């Protein structure tokens, strides 16, 4: 196991915004501007809707429905 294999990248944001964020995170659990920006970006990325790749074939659907009926989960 290596100590740190993660790669980081540098992004640029306007200095006045950075200052505001630094003020805002004082006294919170965020230890740096980077940790705050990472948190916010992760939140935004995860909230974006993706197409749900759950298409059942007709045969699949019948198979699953039959099993759920046999076990009493569906009537």
């Amino acid at each position, binding site marked *: 196991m290596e100590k740190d294999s993660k790669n980081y990248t540098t992004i640029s944001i306007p200095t006045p915004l950075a200052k505001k964020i630094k003020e805002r995170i004082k006294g919170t*659990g965020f230890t740096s501007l980077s940790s705050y920006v990472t948190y916010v970006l992760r939140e935004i990325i995860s909230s974006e809707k993706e197409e749900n790749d759950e298409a059942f074939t007709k045969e699949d659907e019948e198979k699953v429905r039959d099993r759920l009926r046999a076990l009493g989960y569906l009537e």
Partner: protein
Amino acid sequence: MIKPHGGKLVNRLIKKKNIDLGGYKKFEISTNTSEDILNIANGIFSPLNGFLGNNDLNNILKDKRLEDDTPWTIPILIDFDKNDIKELKEGDTVVLTNKETGVTSLLDIEEIQDYDKKTLAQNVYKTKDENHPGVANIYNMKDKLVGGKITLYENKEREYDNYNLTPKETRFLFKEKGWNEIVAFQTRNPPHIGHEYVQKTALTFVDGLFINPIIGKKKSGDFTDDVILASYEALMKYYYPKERAVMSILRTSMKYAGPREAIHHAIMRKNFGCTHFIVGRDHAGVGDYYGPYDAHDIFSEFPDLGITPLFFRSFSRCTKCDSVVNDKICPHEQKYHVNFAGKKIRAILRDGKVPPEDMMRKEVSETILKFDKTFVE
């Protein structure tokens, strides 16, 4: 329907009859590891499609995330004795089998690595103390880890399979029932009144309740799997609206990793199609290794988890309010509170007696007392 963790439900199951696997080196693996294979193959551990390699493991230990930044907190590993794999190299394929689960799986070796057990224990369990059951398991592991994709070819029918739904099936079931928001409740105990209160409180705000007991290796003194399932059947039959609650098991071993395991439990329920997950006091804890609400606090590190935790504190019955309360909603002093202590209920049941009805439903107690073997020896 909520998307699976990592975006896609993994399916590593190939049912092929009479397949010839004779050309590969074969290893008999532990039941727990074979259940990890089943959980990978059926998508419960999505997005994992095999056992972890070095980069993912390092990221999980350091950042609680896979290499691609997807939240993941519990390493899913397979260990080998160095002498058994000395002739193997990256790019080779081996067959993994287990008699109890009937698992026959291929493992494509992508990496063979050394690891430090103490570093692994400290990062996952926050302790190196061998008295912690999860740490003890790590110290008993063999000296090499192998990372790589698995392909499941076979597994056999087992007890409780009638309660065992895959994520594909639960997602279909929820859709058929017209449930958009589903709250999952994880358990390894029969339900007392406090559990019922938590489940019904959560259910009030969503469409359906998914009761998901963990079946598998437990500690001595834990309730047996039969007892847990039968007691929930009784509770659901008499006290839950049929169209609002379903129960299905989860076969996985408890790691007792407290906060990290709470995240892992939430991820698995997300893959089953649940949108919410109940996290109680000292979730997945053991002894006093974790603070009572560490498993709540850790969720703040994951704005991108994709499943909403519902935090519950411990509940008690207030004799003044004459109802179930917690410290947030009841103004009365502690002397009016009767705790739903699992230990207390267990002791009463161990003596063959029926716990008071304000602790456990009569139908549930009576169901439990019908069993000859109530606890794991």
